[in-house]
């Protein structure tokens, strides 16, 4: 897997590649062409990122983003033209105020898009997640799914706003948003196997975040190392 560290540029092209990405700029446009897999796993005190991803025609993108945040104010925009497939999986832990505006723009025909956001709020964490799917008029054969899940492990308020702006009648769009605390049945099950509440919570939390990503053993280990070092 190639590693790309972006600390100066504001525009990069990725073509037919599997990359691990590190972003250290606040404004970045990524142009994806062909088959692209991006893994981004990190812990950041604060992040103010304006990330735009242009998926070129006949391309596919799988983006797994896992971040532990203290504070975050991000704007993520995905533009798809024709014949594109995009899966953007974003898992994060919010230890402070974290807000994301996620815009998915379908500009052409025959696209498939899946945006999955899973957030865990801990300590003073608060998640404000707004996803907007915007489809242009007269486009066709598109499908889009937006899913936002927030697992609340503190007493802070979290907000999910899923928006669908649909201007075409030949498109299938779905959205789902849930904010919940730990499932009591999960807790009872793990306690009944002898796990303490603390350990069970940690397993459920990690499982919640990891199951949102489409990833492999190596990446899971990287994430677990990161979580272990929190």
């Amino acid at each position, binding site marked *: 897997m190639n590693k790309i560290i972006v600390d100066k540029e504001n525009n990069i092209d990725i073509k037919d590649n599997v990359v691990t990405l590190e972003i250290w700029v606040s404004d970045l446009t990524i142009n994806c062409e062909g088959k692209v897999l991006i893994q981004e796993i990190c812990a950041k005190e604060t992040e103010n990122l304006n990330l735009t991803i242009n998926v070129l025609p006949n391309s596919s993108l799988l983006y797994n983003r896992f971040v532990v945040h203290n504070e975050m104010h991000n704007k993520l925009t995905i533009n798809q033209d024709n014949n594109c497939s995009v899966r953007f999986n974003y898992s994060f832990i919010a230890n402070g105020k974290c807000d994301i505006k996620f815009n998915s723009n379908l500009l052409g025909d025959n696209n498939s898009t899946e945006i999955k956001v899973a957030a865990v709020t801990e300590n003073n964490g608060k998640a404000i997640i707004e996803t907007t799917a915007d489809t242009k008029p007269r486009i066709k054969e598109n499908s889009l799914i937006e899913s936002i899940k927030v697992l609340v492990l503190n007493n802070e308020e979290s907000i999910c706003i899923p928006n669908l702006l649909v201007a075409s009648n030949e498109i299938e769009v779905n959205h789902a948003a849930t904010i919940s605390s730990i499932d*009591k049945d999960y807790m009872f099950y793990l306690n009944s196997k002898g796990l303490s509440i603390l350990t069970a919570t940690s397993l*459920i939390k990690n*499982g919640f975040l990891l*199951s949102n990503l489409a990833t492999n053993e190596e990446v899971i280990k990287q994430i677990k190392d990161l979580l272990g070092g929190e």
Partner: protein
Amino acid sequence: MLEINNLTVVAENKEILKDFTLKIKDGETHALMGSNGAGKSTICRAILKDANYQITKGNIIYKNKDLSTLTTTDISRLGIMMISQSPIAIEGVTNAEMLRMALSERTGKHIDIFQFSKEAKEICNKLAIPESFLHRDINSGMSGGERKKNELLHIWMLKPSFLILDEVDSGLDIDALKIVANSIKEYQQETNCAILLITHNPKLLEILKPDCVHILADKKIVKSGDSSLAKTIEKEGFKAIYEEYVIERNLTNE
């Protein structure tokens, strides 16, 4: 020995069990039968202190400890484990991960990964399940039969001394039922564990051969007997026994 003394259990403000009394010695198998909604699963969950069920009277003693003073975690570490009729799936948490943590917390020691894997793989082979089960999420994407075998893996790894099997036969075909039942029997022979068995399945009763069979009705055990009682139920249903109990109760009240 597990002792349940005059237990009253309430769920959602409704009394499910009243004056429920039962004693199960180490190594014994007791089957609890009763019509739907009689409260069989309630007693299973009350033993493990499920927060949805409140014990308002009586107590449960295991290994000389009053379970009402313990948490579900403590009760499990005391050796009690349950397989429910539909074990839940937990995405993102693998069997291996959960078992390693559970063993580590029980023993207070670091678990050697090599030793753990070796033992876990041996158990997978014994249960005729793929070793890949270890690295699959708990019960996730598994059929009913696979879930039960997965739970057996947990039993063999965590080595409980008291097993609660709440309709463990549900969702199993006859071959899977035999594998599950024989594995439980083998486990009991090796460890002398006690079993509280909730079932109406004749095959499971035939393999596990309960020492006692109890009939639950009217919120309590109304009749107990040997395994022949299960055969009577199979032939005649609960009605005759319940009618006999009502006559006796009325006579006592008079």
